[in-house]
């Protein structure tokens, strides 16, 4: 199929866009038949540009899983999965921090009290790609909790405001695995983050 557009007509009007597959159709211009112009390539190029612009602008979705993990300490090993749900490559940087709490309020501070090894500190995620980041942690004392923030940034911004997405995955480490999150949050005075059923 080809796409055609007509010549300028009298009084500033243009002929409508035409479709055909058997040579350029004609439009009546005054008393003459004027062949329409083949704009198929131009139309395809414009469509591709529009599609690329849409992909670059909208495809920006990131995911982290799991959000929390419980482990039997003092050594904890596990995995965190970061996913780029979009259609544009992304950079992800992993930023670990220690989670503490006081007076009912959580506090995220630079990593301390935990020796943490991540299989990767940063990665580049292709479209629809997931990456499994494994960790090996050892708490100085139990219970302890640490959070790994995955910071996603798309491309490079020369001017203006870039958007960075931060998604956390928290690991709670106790002497017993089951119910560790609840015990840690209680010990930190953060029982307000437990549901009514768990209080």
């Amino acid at each position, binding site marked *: 199929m080809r796409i055609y557009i007509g010549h300028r007509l009298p009084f500033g009007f243009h002929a409508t866009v035409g479709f055909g597959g058997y040579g350029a159709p004609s439009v009546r211009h005054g008393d003459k038949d004027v062949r329409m112009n083949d704009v198929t390539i131009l139309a395809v190029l414009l469509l591709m540009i529009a599609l690329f612009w849409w992909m*670059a*602008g*909208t495809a*920006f*979705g*990131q*995911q*982290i*899983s*799991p*959000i*929390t993990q419980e482990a039997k300490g003092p050594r904890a090993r596990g995995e965190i999965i970061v*996913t780029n*749900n*979009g259609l*544009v490559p992304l950079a992800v940087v992993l930023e670990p921090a220690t*989670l503490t*709490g006081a007076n009912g*309020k*959580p*506090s*995220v501070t630079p990593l301390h009290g935990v020796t943490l090894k991540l299989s990767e500190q940063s990665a580049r995620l292709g479209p629809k790609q997931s990456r499994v980041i494994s960790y090996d942690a050892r708490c100085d004392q139990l219970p302890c909790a640490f959070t790994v*923030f995955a910071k996603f*940034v*798309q*491309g490079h*911004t*020369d*001017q*203006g*405001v*870039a*958007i*960075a*997405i*931060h*998604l*956390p995955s*928290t690991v709670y480490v106790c002497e017993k695995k089951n119910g560790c*999150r*609840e015990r840690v*949050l209680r010990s930190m005075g*953060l029982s*307000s*983050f*437990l*549901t*009514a*059923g*768990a209080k």
Partner: protein
Amino acid sequence: MMKRLVVALLAVAMVLAPAANASQLTSATQTVTVSISIGESISISCTPASVAFTGTPSTGSQPIGGLITCTTNWALANTRTVVNMMDYFSSDFPFGTPAIKAGMITGAVNAGAPAPCSDSSAVQFGLTGFFCPNLGQQTFNSSSTNFTGSQTDTLQLAINNSASIPVGTYTGTLNIVALAP
């Protein structure tokens, strides 16, 4: 005649015997435990990935680009109480120049009234930063039915340029975080 009858009976017996035996062969019931584990997850999708503006000297509030639309999806266990979507700058000078302080940037969430980002460092849900108006919050209790859900928020950034920011090109980063403590 008798011989044929015997052969016919034997043939019938041979046909029926296996079926009769088979119907009696029933093994003991075995069970297989099927365990399904679906992990919690949280995701954010923001578009566009950056916004830019060309400022005019000595004018008041000027929008920085268009709307930033952020969609948060979550699938949480019923032990959660809240999901917070927050946005903040890491520094009071987010563009790397003392000419632009965080407080000169305003954010209008979901077409609400613009409010300035804070010029003071604060802690929200354990995070330290110079916070702009929060995008949104979802709270849960034991009877909630939205432990799996999504929320879309919009943010319009603007900058107050009444003090005439020096000519130049500036770049900053707005941090958007979704937390489910």
